[in-house]
């Protein structure tokens, strides 16, 4: 049974060394508030990719720039938002095309993985940077 309206918020500086901690904290939050292993696995995989993209491509690994993560459990879905500090990253993401057939390329799969695991994703420019909003259905 999901604990509706439970919320998780976290700011991190843009250093990849923090990604594992983000995943551990998010997974703990999900395990306490959501009894659904499949959804938890999808969320962790997607958060990992989105936070990594925000740090590396959005904020260009600048530790002076933050990445902001929020997770909200709703009655029928989980809403996760990740915001970087670079509004220009929005245009890159909006126009990004993933070539499914080029399986040997060494990078560039993050957004595709998020799209595969999530039921709906949207992009928008926030106050500070680019926000990726990910929605996973609980039904």
């Amino acid at each position, binding site marked *: 049974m999901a604990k509706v309206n439970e919320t998780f918020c976290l700011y991190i500086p843009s*250093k*990849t*060394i923090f*990604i*594992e901690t983000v*995943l551990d904290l998010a997974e703990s939050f999900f395990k306490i508030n959501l009894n659904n292993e499949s959804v938890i*696995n999808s969320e*962790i*995989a997607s958060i*990992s*990719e989105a936070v*990594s993209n925000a*740090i*590396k491509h959005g904020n260009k690994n600048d530790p002076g720039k933050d990445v902001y993560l929020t997770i909200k459990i709703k009655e029928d879905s989980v809403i996760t938002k990740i915001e970087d500090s670079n509004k220009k990253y929005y245009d890159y993401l909006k126009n990004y095309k993933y070539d*499914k057939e080029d*399986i*040997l*390329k*060494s*990078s560039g*799969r*993050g957004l*595709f*993985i998020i799209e*595969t*695991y999530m039921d709906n994703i949207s992009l928008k420019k926030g106050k500070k940077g680019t926000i990726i909003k990910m929605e996973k259905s609980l039904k």
Partner: protein
Amino acid sequence: MKIDVLTKSHGIKVIKPHGKIVSGPKVMKLKETINKLIEKGDKELILDLDRVPFMDSTGLGVLIAAYTSLQKEDGKLKLVHVDKRIKDLLTITKLLSLFDCYDSEADAVKNILHG
């Protein structure tokens, strides 16, 4: 990240990373470990993921780079003890077809030696 490297029969190397393989210093350490083995002439590698509960797309990139380097040397990379999360990731990215996955190191060694 702790990474053990063991030598099995016929010089086959088993690489055992411990912990999540995600973007950052840990994934770079795994990449360096694999690259050093390949540079030293090790062509038959087994990556034992028994202690790896999660891998992201950067980790997949390391696996692909290792696969590509070993292909050029007529070598092999086998995966052992692949967690469901990682297998799902390999499946959706169509990479599962590149890597032979085994339930035990013994099976992977047997396959390398006898095909």
